[in-house]
């Protein structure tokens, strides 16, 4: 009789131990799921901040002194990028290392259309369509934001100078925080 009661109590203790282990595993799993979800959410938030930053830069960089036409092509020009200025900026871009917290800045002419991509250098400046202004190779580019700008320069026709404006996209590449 005493032995049977002792066995029953042992069984109960065993049952409770198993139950405790099962509950602990269950809550640990739920906790893991929750933590992974939160970590993912945090990563997304960080990427969103990068995206917003790129969007802000895309909307404002065209009107910054380094890029904007100022009054060179007429008064009150907004979203206007001075092509000549950009080529000079590109030449001395090392001085701007870390100035823009982005992966890269690129200008891509969209109209008039040129067949294929032709990167701009000082030699082919009038016959190219991609100006790579700034690149930070240490950042892992994960996406970009773009805005339309008019890309203006001084040109000449039959010996007479005139303002020539084309349409381009200012593309800001952003990187992940991780």
């Amino acid at each position, binding site marked *: 009789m005493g032995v049977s009661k002792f066995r029953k109590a042992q069984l109960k203790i065993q049952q409770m131990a198993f139950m405790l282990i099962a509950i602990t595993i269950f809550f640990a799993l739920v906790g893991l799921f929750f933590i992974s*979800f939160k970590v993912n959410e945090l990563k997304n938030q960080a990427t969103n901040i990068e995206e917003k930053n790129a*969007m802000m830069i895309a909307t404002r960089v065209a009107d910054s002194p380094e890029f904007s036409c100022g009054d060179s092509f007429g008064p009150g020009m907004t979203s*206007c990028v001075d092509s000549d200025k950009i080529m000079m900026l590109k030449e001395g871009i090392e001085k701007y290392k870390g100035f823009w917290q982005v992966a890269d800045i690129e200008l891509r002419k969209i109209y008039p259309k040129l067949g294929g991509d032709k990167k701009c250098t000082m030699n082919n400046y009038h016959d190219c369509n991609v100006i790579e202004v700034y690149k930070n190779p240490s950042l892992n580019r994960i996406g970009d934001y773009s805005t*339309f700008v*008019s890309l203006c320069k001084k040109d000449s026709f039959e010996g007479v100078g005139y303002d020539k404006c*084309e349409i381009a996209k200012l593309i800001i590449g952003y990187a992940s925080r991780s």
Partner: protein
Amino acid sequence: MVKMEKTNKNHKKGQEEIVGFALIIIIVAVIMLIFVSFAIRNKDKGKTVESYKVESFIQAFLPYTTDCRNEHGFLSIKEIIPSCEREDDCLDNRKSCDVLESNLKEIVKESWEVKEGSSIVGYEIIVYSESKEILNVKEGNITNIYQAATQNLSDLYVGLKVYS
């Protein structure tokens, strides 16, 4: 009698355990549903056109230099619109309205790609004065979801709608 009471007690205990188990499953399911709904909601963004892009586009194409010349030089889109309204011709005898139309069509086509799978399903660009419509360029489908921008050029207007 004692055996029956014991069986009833066991039965009740079993029932309680089943109710507890069901409760745990319901709670876990509700938590899962909340997480899934959050995850889906986060993935819905970025499928429409940003308004700043439409506004910047209008600002960007107005200074575009066309190949239409008058006695003052090459005309920009901003300058060719009033010229078209006055029905002026370019120095090479082309109608300024024809140059404006061909340029605008090409510019919008190259800038806003309307294709399957793209977030843009159509666009419409209108050049108008208070009394008449000067030019209307339309492409793709017209929907209720769109971003629009208008630019005032003294008594003339340029409007752009991009549908998504």
